[in-house]
């Protein structure tokens, strides 16, 4: 028996072709009718632009520069913000901390050449902190994917580090002779830990970082372990001062909701840094399963929506076309603000930038 349909006589062949044509035409017409309005060119999310109000108070560019490891700028900013807080009678860092930051900035600039350790950061948190408080050439490798996140450290910095941490680079890492490895007690593969232990590399395993205090603690530990206590301490003080400064900027949080989007909406967890920043900004963090989020969202009907989304996704047309989301006050009034998901979700000391973007999105 033949496996495939035999060649049909001409008339029967035409009938068969007509049958397939009609079926395809039916489906194509259906989809064209119902989906044609939804087809939008894939545009990137509009880039964030600092509002004049916020930019005049805190410059994002300066924050970025400081977080990259400009310790003199860190010291200057801490002092400047303290003066402004005194002048306006706002909450400020304790004076001893301000003086300490000033002292550290001066000291660090006077002793630029320090003995370098060869460091292996296996987590994004460690890599971010170490790139700031140490020099890039001290690092023997970066966690896989870290180079792609260029919002903080551009390619010129990361290119100085030759390797990526991977299962396949164990021997290369061994040849690089790291003197200390920063791993995660939470998710580093046991085999990778064993390999490092077998190579005689001292290991620091950091627990899961769930809030700002956890990050500050890790900065302190990293600084101590690599002999850059002063840099670590200054970075800690700078982050504290920057968050305090951002806390004092007036923002509109009434009936505002923060959401993340990737294929569907979800709310950040309380037990991660994004959730901690959202709460710090004075926004609610309802505990709702993704399962039932849409109905809840329509019920809440927020006046402002702040959405963390990858830049490749253009969400606004979708919100405006969806019969449910288009009813939200936030969408109707054009009060949907987008923040870069990459900045918001990366658990490093760049949480200052994430918080800045969040506060910017909350400007009236």
């Amino acid at each position, binding site marked *: *028996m*033949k*496996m*495939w*349909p*035999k060649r*049909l006589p001409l008339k029967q062949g035409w009938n*068969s072709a007509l049958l397939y044509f009609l*079926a395809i035409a*039916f*489906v194509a017409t*259906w*989809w064209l009718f*119902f*989906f044609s309005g*939804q*087809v*939008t*060119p*894939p545009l990137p999310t509009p880039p964030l632009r600092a509002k004049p109000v916020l930019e005049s108070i805190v410059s994002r560019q300066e924050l970025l520069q400081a977080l990259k490891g400009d310790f003199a700028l860190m010291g200057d900013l801490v002092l400047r913000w303290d003066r402004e807080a005194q002048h306006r009678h706002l909450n400020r860092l304790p004076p001893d901390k301000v003086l300490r930051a000033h002292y550290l900035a001066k000291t660090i600039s006077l002793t630029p050449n320090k003995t370098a350790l060869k460091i292996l950061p296996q987590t994004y948190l460690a890599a971010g902190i170490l790139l700031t408080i140490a020099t890039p050439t001290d690092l023997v490798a970066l966690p*896989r*994917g870290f180079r792609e996140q260029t919002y903080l450290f551009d390619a010129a910095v990361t290119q100085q580090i030759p390797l990526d941490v991977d299962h396949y680079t164990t021997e290369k890492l061994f040849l690089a002779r790291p003197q200390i490895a920063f791993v995660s007690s939470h998710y580093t593969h046991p085999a990778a830990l064993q390999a490092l232990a077998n190579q005689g590399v001292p290991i620091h395993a950091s627990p899961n970082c769930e809030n700002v205090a956890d990050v500050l603690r890790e900065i302190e530990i990293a600084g101590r372990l690599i002999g850059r206590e002063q840099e670590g301490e200054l970075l800690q003080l700078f982050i504290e001062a920057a968050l305090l400064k951002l806390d004092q900027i007036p923002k509109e949080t009434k009936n505002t909701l923060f959401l993340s989007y*990737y*294929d*569907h909406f979800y709310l950040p967890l309380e037990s991660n840094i994004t959730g901690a920043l959202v709460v710090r900004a004075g926004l609610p963090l309802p505990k709702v*399963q*993704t*399962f*039932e*989020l*849409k*109905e*809840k969202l*329509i*019920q809440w009907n927020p006046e402002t929506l702040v959405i963390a989304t*990858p830049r*490749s*996704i253009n969400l606004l047309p*979708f919100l405006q076309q*969806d*019969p*449910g989301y*288009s*009813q939200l006050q936030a969408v109707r009034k054009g009060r949907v603000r987008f923040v870069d*998901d990459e900045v918001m979700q990366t658990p490093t000391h760049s949480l200052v930038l994430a918080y800045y973007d969040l506060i910017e999105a909350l400007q009236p």
Partner: protein
Amino acid sequence: MKLTLGFLFLLCTALVLATGDTPFSQLLQADFAEWNPLWHERLPRLIVLFLTGASLAVSGAVLQALFQNPLASPSILGVTCGGCLLVLPVFFFQWHLNYPFALPVAACGGSLLTLLLVYALARRKGRVEMGTLILTGIALSTFFLAAQGALLYALRDKWQFVQMLTEWEGGTSADRSWKHVHMQLPLTLIALSGVLYYRREINLLALGEEEALSLGVDVPTVRWRLFLCVSLLTGAALAAMGVIAFFCMLLPHLVRLFYGSNAEKLLPACMAWGALSLATVDITLRAFDVHLLSIGNVSALIGGLTFLLLLTRKRSFSYA
């Protein structure tokens, strides 16, 4: 029986439409004039559940008849895995965001290619040995799963993508909307019409291809069209709800115990019970607020356990 089925359908419909955060009393209020959870959330979910349940059960029944094997089903033959593999790039490049029909096109294409490949590889000297067929299906499934695993491994840093794919592969009814209905409905309508149109031939093919040929069935043409229908049903269900494993194998088998193997009765019964079963699983998960498991997980667990039970009891586990 028809009355019971009608009652169960009404009950299921009422329960799905009544389950949600918005109290039913509020649904008809003016606030919801434009967006109504009943119309925009629960009704599309109900339709997708019914369509998917019916599609999977019918596709399993058709394959079991075509191959005269109670083990034949899209998931066992690797059809689901083939569909999944082609869906992966659609998700990765986010084509589905701008072109929702890319999902069913990829899923149906992958399903059809796999089905043809399984059939071609399992065929020896004009005959398809049942053992060879199942083994070919399992081998291709393994290969596709490995390919998918390799891609996911390569993309493991894209955690959002991996998370999204995990949710989709779990098989879920969360966030289903009219978009999913429109993705699935035209394909399902055509495929179900095709399957029902060939119900007499399915009965004859269940006796064996040689017998069907001698009884006047144009076997290659009918078989090709039924393959197309099964691919459309499986692919559309895959695109709308994700992977629902075991359902398409077990349900036709259970329905056959009560309705017999006559496709005239079996296919409509599979449609009805498939739709009802999937909706019931969804209602149960929602009623008990179970968020840790998806419909796909539950159906696979129930399916696997029931299948084992049937095997251990050895109760009439054959196609006839």
